[in-house]
């Protein structure tokens, strides 16, 4: 009997031991769901945004792509990029509704977005910036300093529809006439031609104009608002607390010192590589 009991104990314990790594430590539900699915779904806008993310499914690359892949490595699952969102707002909605696990899509932290999703620590802290038509500025300046004209901005201001700058514009320029557009390129050409007075976006995108639209320099002026903030972070679902911890871990450990200059260097390097395809 004693011998039988010992054998039984050995048998049971060996079975238990064999099961230990997978079933005895229960995973938090958000991670468990990803593990079960064995893929991390990352939402990004449909439109490319180098050096954050660009290229088709096989060749997708950029800073946001790298961050997403690092998160995938920590969790131990492959990453799948979901690129069907038409706007930044839609990216946020996909995370909110659980259609994507995270959104790494050069997303700005804004008040309205914080009501529905959680944001990680920012991995880039940008400033807000503007591109202004010079002729408009001269004709509406009334001898005032440029900063005074901008503080009391009363012309047509354009920004990408359903983007964070929609929110920022309404908060910072209450007297302006808001003209949302779907395409940033359209906004630039409108400001260059004088159809609208100003375009509103982050300093990095404003700086990029000088590379993509060299003719804009003569008719437009670029202005950085140095006491403004545009924090770029990863969005996760409200219930994904464990996932948020992992995202923050990746950002704090590996992406904690990215600035506008490094971003610009990345952009220039990418530009050189894909030069023939980006001709506009």
């Amino acid at each position, binding site marked *: 009997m004693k011998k039988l009991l010992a054998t039984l104990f050995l048998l049971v314990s060996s079975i238990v031991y064999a099961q230990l790594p997978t079933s005895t430590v229960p995973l938090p539900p958000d991670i468990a769901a990803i593990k079960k699915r064995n893929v991390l779904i990352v939402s990004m806008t449909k439109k490319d945004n180098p050096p954050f993310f660009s290229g088709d499914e096989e060749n997708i690359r950029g800073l946001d792509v790298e961050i997403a892949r690092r998160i995938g490595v920590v969790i131990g699952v492959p990453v799948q990029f979901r690129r069907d969102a038409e706007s930044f707002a839609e990216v946020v909605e996909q995370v909110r509704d659980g259609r994507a696990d995270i959104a790494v899509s050069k997303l700005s932290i804004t008040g309205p977005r914080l009501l529905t999703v959680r944001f990680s620590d920012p991995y880039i802290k940008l400033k807000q*910036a503007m591109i202004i038509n*010079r*002729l408009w*500025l*001269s*004709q509406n*300046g009334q001898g005032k*300093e*440029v*900063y005074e004209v*901008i*503080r009391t901005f009363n012309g047509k201001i354009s920004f990408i529809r359903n983007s964070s700058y929609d929110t920022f514009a309404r908060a*910072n320029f209450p007297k302006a006439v808001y003209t949302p557009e779907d395409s940033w390129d359209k906004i630039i050409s409108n400001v260059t031609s*004088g159809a609208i007075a100003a375009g509103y976006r982050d*300093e990095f995108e*404003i*700086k990029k104009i*000088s*590379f993509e639209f*060299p*003719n*804009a*320099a*003569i*008719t437009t*002026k*670029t*202005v*950085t*608002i*140095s*006491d*403004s903030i545009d924090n770029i972070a990863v969005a996760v679902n409200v219930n994904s607390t464990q996932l948020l911890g992992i995202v923050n871990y990746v950002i704090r450990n590996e992406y904690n010192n990215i600035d506008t200059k490094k971003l610009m260097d990345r952009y220039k390097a990418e530009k050189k590589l894909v030069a023939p395809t980006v001709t506009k």
Partner: protein
Amino acid sequence: MQFNLKSFLSSPWTILGSIILGVLAGIYAPAASMNFESVGGIYISLLKVVVIPFLLATILVGVISLLQKEGSATMIRKIIIGFVASMFIAAVIGVGTVALTGSEMTPAKQAQLGSIVNDKESGSDLNITLKEPMPAAAHVDPMQMAQKFIPENIFNTLAAGESLKIVIFCLIFGIALGNIKSTGQEILVDMLKSVQQASISIFKFLNYFLPFALLAMISSQVGKVGVGIFLTMVEFIMQQAIGGFLVIAVGTFVIWKRSGLSLMTVIRETKETLIVAVSSRSSLACIPYAQESLHKLHFDKTGVELTVPLSFTVNRIGSIVYYAIATVFIANIYGAPMGLTGLIVVLFGSILAGLASAGTTGILTVATVAVVCDLLKLPSEAVLVLLIAVDPLMDMIRTASHVHGNVAVTAFVCDKEIDDGQTQRVTT
């Protein structure tokens, strides 16, 4: 015929040859040409080194002689009429040139110009704050404008070479000196005349080196700037060249009519001044040449000695033409409609800018175009980069029309010399 080095060096053909050689060297060997930049710099410095004592002496002598002569009031009146009329004519020429030669700004041209202005390496054009206080802007006091004309310490002014203040000082001091009845005054006038003559002989000596200096200056300038930007800005350059040509043509006509000599004589006597103007791009350096050519054309010595330095420093003919053309060019870039009212604003605005630019040189002169642009509510900031880039060439045209225009003003103001003995002395 024996080869004469002196006449070879001062021959206009030699000078023309060195200009052409300079341009070619600048285009085909820009790196080597740039090494010679300092040679041209040394020449300009040598030219300028005696300009200040010369300016001082010549205006003082001019004022004193004028006071001792009959009809000084008539002359002062004529100087004022001459200045006002010439500024107005200059503005009309400028506006007329662009009104007749202006063309449409296409997006392609705009892109070309934009890529020159575009500075990819720097940050945004301006940093501002929305809520945090901004540093207070430098407040421009209109009274401070007057400071530009008023010398505080004549020795500082001389040391800094602020020609406009020197002229003001000389006028005040000359009038005071002219009213002193003493032997001291005569001694001083004699001394100043010696300074004047010594300066002129230095200028004449330097003139022999002009072909070499020209070669060095032009080749290094062309080498440095390159020809690309000039091709992009060709329209503006052509307009400026036409404007400059018209000023010189009108000026030559006035000198011809006033001198009563043949047109060929007028051209022969004034061409050297023009060559120095184009090569040195310094109107001050042209003063002795202008005076000598006017002497040779038998204009009254006293009048010439006073009017030339006065008009060269105060009456900014070249700049007025430049501003008128540049403003319409800027309006064209921004597609701002000008209309008749706009052109009238340009006309008077460029005269105003010309007055405001008194005492400025180089980039500061170019930047004064903002005076006219502000009147028309046009942005000038971005285009300024373009204007500065082509300014080495523009400065040549500006100086040439400025110098020749004011030689014409002097010819208008001054009577013909009666004393034949004196005119013979200056004829070489």
